[in-house]
């Protein structure tokens, strides 16, 4: 079909435009530490994000220990529990997932996949990582200040976030706000790079509609983040001023311990609007890269073109746009005008349409594909199932009448952990199993990966399916303990203990993954340049791992989209994006007539 059908394409000279002046490191320090190479920055981002993510994992263990076995552990007080909740949520959402998807995968994959030597502003890109690291360190520092980290909940709602009854109101909340502001400054520097690189530094022939969906996902998510993070920044600046200088942006008149505080005239709901104007797009900042990556994993490991590529791109863009008009569905219980609730419920349900299109297209990509149950494919399939699960409970919660009774119960916890916790993390794992060979030149160990997948996947269901049920029973979220509550049956406690045991097992299974990463770097099977026989440009580099400047002396020229699998007449079942049309056919006997069926949209 497509490419084999070209009889003759004029010779295209190697790109003369598009070459950029590369910064060449002169010392070990500028090559591996203060590096301006996007690949090194990507690895720095990834390691930092995974390290801080492990802290958040341990915090979730602590919470589960308390919930599963209340009044057993003397080292978990109520204050500690609130601090664990807050830090677990904030770290996982922002410092792990956002940083890993955009800073990690974005930095590694964007230049390689679009055929660029590096990001367009490498120095700013380097600064981006170091400011991110600073943000992480400031956040970690809050564990060691008097009063500990903030326990305000990851949403940091004022007035309680800065009042003295909340743990961490001395220093913890300030460090949290400063760390968030730093993160946003750092992210903006990186984000400008990702967007402008995709727009301006694509190699010859790499049109927008030939980009792999991974790039579309990361690109759109970055645009969302650039537009959404300022809301959190504004909220953080104003709350810092409230806490430090005694202004009243968010603080109403308050009597505390019988004394009138000096605050007055501020609006706590204003913070909720700012927070969720950031917070809802944040869901898609995490989900869109996952969508994109999963499309590519499925396509490569099922040896089939992505079904409805153009619709997939548009769906990503439409989901991104819609994500800015649904934020108040997080605030149904804030006392808003019922018409507001009606509006936001409607927009929320509309988002299900492009999302459902994506799910259908993934399934139709698999349909009659040559499915290989490799590790990346297992994780991709796990993602689709989990995302559908979490998405459907989202349809329940998007309706005001269903949300009001379920709000602040474990049902909500189960919903968002499924849809933006487990689902994106499965994609992170799938992506690491997929691209690790390119980053190191070695394959990850398969038996270890199987153990990791099955424990993580089944374990996640054993943890979060029961939480839905607990939510229906009325078990509230954010409660330190529930022992003597009359409407909670005894069986709920047994279930909680079960969930805790599974959570510990799933957590330990992640150590298998970390061990695999280290072990395979030394002992793993050599992968060669293109072990998955994929088409996109990162697999066609001159060296593996790719060297400084990514490609050889000349940049690749792109002749087709990234999904040229199973072309009739081609000598292989895949045709790389940069293979010259004259080299595609096996010989004169091949069918070059172009009469083969073309993929329908």
């Amino acid at each position, binding site marked *: *079909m*497509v*490419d084999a059908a*070209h009889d003759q*394409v*004029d010779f*295209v000279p190697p*790109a003369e*435009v*598009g070459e950029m002046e590369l910064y060449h490191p002169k010392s070990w320090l500028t090559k591996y530490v203060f590096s301006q190479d996007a690949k090194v920055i990507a690895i720095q981002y990834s390691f930092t994000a995974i390290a801080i993510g492990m802290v958040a994992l341990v915090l979730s263990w602590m919470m589960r220990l308390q919930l599963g076995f209340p009044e057993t552990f003397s080292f978990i007080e109520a204050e500690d529990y609130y601090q664990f909740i807050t830090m677990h949520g904030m770290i996982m959402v922002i410092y792990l997932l956002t940083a890993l998807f955009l800073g990690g995968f974005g930095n590694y994959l964007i230049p390689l996949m679009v055929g660029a030597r590096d990001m*367009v*502003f490498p120095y700013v890109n380097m600064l981006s990582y170091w400011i991110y690291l600073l943000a992480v360190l400031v956040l970690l520092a809050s564990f060691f200040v008097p009063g500990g980290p903030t326990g305000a909940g990851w949403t940091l709602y004022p007035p309680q976030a800065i009042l003295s009854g909340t743990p961490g109101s001395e220093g913890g909340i300030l460090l949290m706000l400063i760390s968030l502001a730093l993160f946003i400054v750092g992210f*903006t520097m990186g984000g*400008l790079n990702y*967007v*402008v690189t995709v*727009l*301006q*530094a694509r190699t*010859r*022939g*790499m*049109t*927008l*509609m*030939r980009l792999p969906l991974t790039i579309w996902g990361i690109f759109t998510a970055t645009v969302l983040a*650039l*537009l959404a993070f*300022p*809301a959190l*920044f*504004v909220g953080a*600046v*104003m709350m810092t*001023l409230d806490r430090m*200088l*005694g*202004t*009243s*942006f968010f603080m109403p008149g308050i009597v505390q311990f019988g004394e009138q505080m*000096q605050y007055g*005239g*501020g*609006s706590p709901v*204003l913070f909720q609007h*700012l927070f969720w*104007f950031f917070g809802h797009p944040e869901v898609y900042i995490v989900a869109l890269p996952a969508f994109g990556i999963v499309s590519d994993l499925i396509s490569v490991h099922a040896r089939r*073109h992505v079904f409805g*590529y*153009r619709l997939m*791109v*548009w769906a990503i*863009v439409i989901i991104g746009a819609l994500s800015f008009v649904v934020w108040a569905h997080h605030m149904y219980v804030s006392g808003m005008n019922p018409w507001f609730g009606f509006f936001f419920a409607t927009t929320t349900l509309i988002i299900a349409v492009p999302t459902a299109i994506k799910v259908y297209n993934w399934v139709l990509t698999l349909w009659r594909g040559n499915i290989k149950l490799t590790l990346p494919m297992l994780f991709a399939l796990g993602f689709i199932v989990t995302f559908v699960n979490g998405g459907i409970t989202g349809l329940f919660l998007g309706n005001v009448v269903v949300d009001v009774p379920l709000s602040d119960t474990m049902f909500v916890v189960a919903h968002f952990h499924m849809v933006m916790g487990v689902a994106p993390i499965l994609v992170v794992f799938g992506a690491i199993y997929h691209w690790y060979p390119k980053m190191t030149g070695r394959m990850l160990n398969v038996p270890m990966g199987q153990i990791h997948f099955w424990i993580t996947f089944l374990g996640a269901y054993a943890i979060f399916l029961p939480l839905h049920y607990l939510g229906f029973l009325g078990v509230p979220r954010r409660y330190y303990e529930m022992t003597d509550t009359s409407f909670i049956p005894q069986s709920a406690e047994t279930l909680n203990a079960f969930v805790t045991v599974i959570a510990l097992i799933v957590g330990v299974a992640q150590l298998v993954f970390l061990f695999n990463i280290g072990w395979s770097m030394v002992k793993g099977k050599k992968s060669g340049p293109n072990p998955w026989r994929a088409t996109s440009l990162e697999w066609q580099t001159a060296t593996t791992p790719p060297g400084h400047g990514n490609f050889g002396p000349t940049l690749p020229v792109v*002749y*087709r*989209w990234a*999904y040229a699998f199973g072309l009739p007449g081609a000598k292989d079942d895949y045709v790389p994006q940069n293979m010259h049309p004259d080299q595609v056919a096996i010989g004169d006997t091949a069918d070059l007539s172009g009469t083969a069926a*073309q*993929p329908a*949209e």
Partner: protein
Amino acid sequence: MNIFRQMMVKPWLTEQGAVVELLDERTFSQPTPKIGLRLFLIVVAVFFSLMLSAYIERKVFSDWNSLSLPWLLWLNTAILIASSMAMHYALVNARRGQIDGVKTGLSAGGVLTFAFLVGQLLAWRELVATGYYVSLDPANAFFYMLTGVHGVHLIGGLVAWWRTMAKIRRGQDAVQVRLSVDLCAVYWHFLLLIWLVLFALMLLT
């Protein structure tokens, strides 16, 4: 727009997939740093519009006590307009290839910006002296915050201005510094626009 036309392409079809028709690898023909700056300005615009929407939302309540703006702010506004014009003068000269005009324009623009920042600080002092403390009232808090973040953005601009001046001192000619001057001018015009909107909103009470 071009970008939408590009998104209508069906990449799997032979005729639209032909490489000969699709040589242009850039989405925009402008130089890359200009695209970067525009994108950054969009982010800054979102930032200020969120602050302003918070400001307007708070302002509509009946307990809002406006503070009486010092007359100095009018003078500061004039200075900022002048600095923006000086930056534009530098840009026009850079386009004509006259490095002396670039120097004059840039130097004047920088000095006037410093003057504006000093003027803003004096205005703050005047307000504090008359008892408009930051924590006294939401109106005061918004005034100090909005003028403060605007000033911080100008200081950021002065870093870019300083680097451009250093290029000229190293002997680069008008063609070499043209892009830098262009970026400075766009940024200054943008911050002037932000200031005019802020000032107008603060006057309208």
